[in-house]
Every structure is written in C-alpha cells, then in structure tokens.
C-alpha cells in the first residue's frame, strides 16, 4: 500500500510542471509592471519596413491630401493608438500643410481617432478641424464603403463624425475620390482593414499605401509589403516605438518597450522550463516503467 502511494504521488518535477497557472500570470505581470515604473532604456532598432513607412510619407508633396482610415477599436487600442499618435506627429510636426482625412470602418474607431486628433494635432500643433484635418466617422459596409469612395467620397460620407455636412468643410473642397489622395495611411486591427484596402483600392486605383497593424495581423500583411503593394509597415507596439524613435518623438510606445522585451524574456523562460520539465518527467516515467516490468 505504501509502495503504491509512493508511485502515485507526484514528484517535485511533476508538481512544478503542473504549477498553478496563476503563478505564471503573476510572474509575467510583475515583470511587465516593474520596468514601467523603473525604465531600463533598452535600445530600439528601427526595421527597414518602418523606415519605408516613414519615407513613403516623406515622399508625398507638401499640401497633399492624406486618407487616414483608423480601422480599430478599444480592443486594439494598446497597440494602435500609440501608432496613430506617432503618425499624427509626423503629419503635423514638419508644417508641410498636409490635409488629413480620417475615418473608421470599425464602429468604435472614429472616437479614438478624434481623441488622437485633439490631443496631437490640435493641442500640440494648433491644427484646425475642417481646415487641416477632418474625421469622417464610421460607415457600415466594409468593402462596399471602400469601393464607393472610389466613385465619390462626399457621396459615401455626406456628413462627418459630428453630423456636419462635409461640403461645408474647407478641407473637402475639390476632393472627389481616390484620384485626389496622395497616400493612404491605414491603421488596422483586422477585418475590414489593410487587406481589404489593398484589394479594393491599391490594386484598382493604384493608390500609394502604408499600413500600421497589430502584431497578430502583421504576418498576414507581409506578402503585401514584399510585393510592393504596401510601401511600408508598422507592426504592433514595437513598430510604433520604432516609428517614435525615427521621428524623434518618444511617447507611450517607447515607454512600453522595456516591459515588452522583459515580458518576452519571461515567456521564453517559461516555454523552455516547460519543455525541460516535460522531457525530464517523461524520462523518469520511462525509467520507472522499465524498472517495474
């Protein structure tokens, strides 16, 4: 009986392997929170796709019109809002007179975009709503909205985010469709987003396009970057931090990078630990089985 108990009782290694998952959560939480309080200042390397994103915006003529669809909602705010802010800094910091037309194909996207416009464009650069930028708001219809804007942007969006008729806004004067757009800068969390803009707009109207996406969606969009359909790409919070580094405007993305790196390190350690324990436990079990038979 005592023998049987000893055999069925989990060993120390088995206990560690089956540890309460809440210990893992706690370890990751502590590793992420500590560098947010005491930053380490780990270096940030700018990737080629981020440089290309920056260069594409630099390449358009001054006073051009930029279409800026922000297709995300609060679920992706952590990654994409810092990106939106960094891009707005780039638009307005050089005083190039760019006209920014924002919109969103996610219902909760336009309020976030409006907040970014107010915090960055208005408060920091004195940009004026309706003159330097506009928020066209949300429109249901996904690909249909994209296709319809190819015919007429004012017809697709008769009013802006606040319900104002867009033909009363100076920024919309002379803007009819994609032919009047110099670059499409999409910030995207999934469907409808970058993939659909590429399929419905870039391939049909030959519009220059760059995209900032969540880390989850990025692998899906790399083929578009490799084929040249996207002129540049920002990937998750890391991409936003690299962009902040590039434009020399360290913000919330940069401050989160230490935490991100350490969080990854802890997850790698847990994966390695889990695999080592699995191998050791399997070896022990095989040894015990061999002894028994």
């Amino acid at each position, binding site marked *: 009986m005592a023998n049987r108990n000893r055999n069925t009782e989990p060993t120390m290694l088995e206990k560690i392997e089956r540890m*309460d*998952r*809440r210990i893992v*959560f706690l370890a*990751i*939480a502590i590793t*992420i*929170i500590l560098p*947010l*309080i005491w930053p380490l200042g780990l270096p940030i390397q700018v990737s080629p796709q981020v440089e290309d994103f920056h260069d594409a915006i630099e390449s358009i003529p001054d006073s051009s019109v930029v279409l800026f669809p922000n297709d995300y909602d609060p*679920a992706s*705010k*952590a*990654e994409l809002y810092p990106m939106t802010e960094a891009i707005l800094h780039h638009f307005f910091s050089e005083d190039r007179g760019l006209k920014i037309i924002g919109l969103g194909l996610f*219902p*909760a996207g336009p309020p976030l975009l409006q907040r970014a416009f107010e915090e960055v464009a208005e408060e920091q650069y004195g940009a004026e709503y309706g003159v330097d930028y506009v928020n066209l*708001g*949300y*429109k*249901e*219809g*996904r*690909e*249909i909205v994209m*296709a319809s804007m190819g015919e007429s942007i004012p017809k*697709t*969006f*008769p*009013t802006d985010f606040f*319900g104002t008729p867009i033909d009363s806004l100076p920024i919309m004067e002379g803007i009819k469709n994609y032919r009047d757009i110099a670059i499409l800068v999409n910030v995207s969390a999934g469907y409808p987003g970058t993939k*659909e803009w*590429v*399929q*419905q707009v*870039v*391939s*049909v109207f030959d519009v220059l396009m760059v995209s900032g996406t*969540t*880390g*989850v969606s*990025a*692998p899906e969009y790399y*083929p578009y970057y*490799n*084929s*040249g*359909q996207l002129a540049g790409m920002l*990937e*998750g*919070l*890391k991409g936003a931090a690299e962009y902040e580094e590039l434009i020399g405007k360290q913000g*919330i993305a940069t*401050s*989160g990078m230490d*935490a*991100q790196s350490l*969080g*990854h390190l802890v*997850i790698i350690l847990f994966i390695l630990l889990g695999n080592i324990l699995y191998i050791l436990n399997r070896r022990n079990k095989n040894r015990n089985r061999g002894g028994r038979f």
Partner: protein
Amino acid sequence: MWETLGIWIQVFLTLAIFSFLYRDNPFYKFAEHLFVGVATGYWVVLQVRNVLLPNLFEPLLRFSDPWLLLPLFLGLVLFMRLSDRYSYLSRWGMAAVVGIFAGLAIFGFGGGDLIIQIRSNILPFIDREAIAAFTENAGLITFLEILSNPIFILGVICVLFYFFFSKEHTGALGIVSKIGIYLLMISFGASYGNTVMARISLFIDRAQFGIVNWIPTVIIGVLMIIAFIVLAITGKVDPKEQF
C-alpha cells in the same frame, strides 16, 4: 468631477476583467455583461446616426435620390424572416448582400492577391545584387541576403507540394512535403510570437493606465482582494479552483 468618476469606473472595470485570471467571479461577470449591453446600444445608435440618417433617410426626405428606395426596400424585406408567410421575401435582400460581397471579394482576391502575389513570387534564384553586396561588404547579414531568394522559392514549392493530395506523400514527394510542413510550422511559430507580443501590449496599456492612476487602482484592487478573501472564508468560492 466627471473625468475623475470616469477614471474610477475605468479602473474598476479593468481590474474586474483581470480578476478572471484569478477565477471566474461576480466582478468579472458584471463587467462582461455591462460591456455587451453598452456595446450593443452604442452600435445601434451609431448605425442610425452615422449610416441610416445621412446615407438613406435624409436624402429620401429631400427627394434627392429616389433610387435609394431600392436599398430601403431590400433592407426592409430582410425583416420578413419574422413572418412565416412572407419569409421568402427576405431572400431578395439576402441575395443582394451576398451577391455584392461575393462580387467584391472575388474581384479583390483576383486583382489584389492572386495575380500580384504570383507575380511577386517569380524571383531570380540567384540574386546578383545580393552577391554584389556580399562581395562589397562580406558579413552574416549580406550572406543571409544571398540565401533569401533560394529559401523563398524552394519554400513556396515545398509548401505547395505539402498541399498536393492526389499522390501519397512517400519517397521524394514525402521529403519535399516534410520540408513544407516544417516551413509551415516556422511560420506558425512566427505568428504565435506576434500574438504573444500583441497580448503583452494589451497588458502594458492597462498597466500604464493603472500606474498613472495608481490611487484608484490600489484602493479598488485592495477592496477586491478583501472581497475575494471574504468569499473564500464564507465558502462561497474555492480559492484553489481555477477557471
């Protein structure tokens, strides 16, 4: 005052959602139900205010575009599903929706994905520019650049062979398809890595918010912990039980 109240509500809801990591509990359920209700209400208001009014009803009331009666009719007949007698009418609206989306999707995939992606996969096996860069500046990165095109081309071929099911995967085909599956696993690993990065970013955002608003975070966090201890003592929850 309203801003402060908003921050306290945000902190409470954030901690209530995170409390699920400890175990399922009434705070989490409350936050979850509240989110579903608020999101539904917001979505309905938005559809009416941003879509139906400016794009349909206002132009119709101004008699500026009588053609809009057609989408109005097709939209209304969708509700005929509620009637046993006239439910067949809803198929007209549904047919229009499916037809338009299918047409746009086929057009988009054909023009935006299929042709351009195939074209971008036609690469020279040996990249002369990469060789020139390596000769000029020999190093690990420039050497890997030379391998880039061969890996890409052979990778595409191997993965395509893995999805070739008309012949048993044995012999040479077996080896090629095996390489294909390993390459697929590498790509799944990269996707998983990106997913981890995205999830950590979400937590970073909330942690930054909690640090900036540390007073409500500490107060509400402590109150929640006390509530969990009380629930555990009274036996209403088993602290060892996970979700």
